[in-house]
């Protein structure tokens, strides 16, 4: 009974995290913060997988392995996302400096 409750508790926490992350993704207007919000949602999905795989004494190793795969995939995409955000900022920065230089001459 307690295992059941523990499993549901973590799975429900995961469900709330998904919703929180989605709220952040839509309302935050900076790409870096949206990237963070997606990671919160992703962690929520993983926690749902773990919670619903909670048995009487053990947690199903199958979803555990899937979650590890998911965590690695998520960090790969987050890293690329961060690189894109920085490249975008560099381009904007350079364009602004060009404008200023163009304005002076």
């Amino acid at each position, binding site marked *: 009974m*307690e*295992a*059941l*409750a*523990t499993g549901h*508790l*973590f*799975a429900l926490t*995961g*469900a709330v*995290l998904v*919703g*929180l992350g*989605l*709220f952040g993704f*839509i*309302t935050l*207007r*900076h790409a*870096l*913060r949206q*990237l*963070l919000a997606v*990671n*919160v949602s992703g*962690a929520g999905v*993983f*926690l749902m997988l*773990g*919670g*619903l795989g*909670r*048995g009487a*004494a*053990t*947690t*199903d*190793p*199958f979803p555990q*392995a*899937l*979650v*590890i*795969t998911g*965590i690695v*995939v*998520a*960090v*790969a*995409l*987050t*890293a*690329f996302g*961060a690189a894109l*955000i*920085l*490249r975008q*900022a*560099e381009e904007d*920065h350079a364009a602004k400096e060009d404008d200023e230089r163009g304005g002076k001459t």
Partner: protein
Amino acid sequence: MSLVFDLVLCLMILGTAAASLLMRSALGGIVFFIAFGNLLGIAWLSLGAVNVALAEIAIGAGVTGILLILAHARLSAMGDPVECEPTSPWMRAAVAVICGGLIVLLSVAVLSISPTDRMGAQIATLMPALGIENPVTGVLLAFRAYDTLLETFVLLGALVAVWAIAPPGGWPQRPASLAIATPVSLTVIGTFSRVLLPASLVMAAYLVWTGSDLPGGAFQGGTVLAGGILVAALGGAIALPRADDMRLRSVLVLGPAMFLGIGLGGIALGRFLSYPVGLEKALIVAIEYALALSIGATLALLVAGKPVPPAAVQEGGD
């Protein structure tokens, strides 16, 4: 552990998650995100999933946190304060209703499913044939080795993708230096990292080795190695390599290539990725060591970012 502990833990997880999203300050949000990741790690411990707890704390909180902090610092250096334009309260209310609805739907679905260990017993009967005892490693490197193989290519692909957006003149140079600018601090961290880098190598090797039977494995070990490399780069003990350095390329592809090679070797015995009887553990450990090395290098370079023109190498590190 008791239900009360879990309940408090879940409330703290939700609180840190909310703070990481709702705080005005982006940097504060990122700090809360790291705390959130560490609490999640404790949640996984509470679920008895030590493998996931290690991965979550090392990768989910650690590497992702460093990535976000570094991106924030570099954006600030370019004059982007990482501020969000405020959204209208009406819109926030509407979005909150939608997200609340999603939470309710998900909760109803979650409560309709009773949590059980569905495949643990079946996996336990197959584990003796592999000669290893950690069932999660068994799933990752035998039963679902195909997923894991593709996943290593996602990681490698992400690094190539970061290379693809190198600015003009940046290819094939080094990433912006991470070294600390203050000379005194540089000395301290440099000395520290000269101890830490070999220690992280030993620690990574230990995690991979112990991962056959106890919690650990290639991803956790690789992340520890990445941490050692990054601290060494912070302390100026090592220089990050050029993107066209053939030794670097070899290290990056070593793990995925070893995985592919052993998988293709399985064809001679029947199927792609089937391990010959008696050699399962040896081959799995070989793949894991190669993978840990490649994952360590790949993660460290992913954090460091894209190659930049040589003149910019020095100024990007603050």
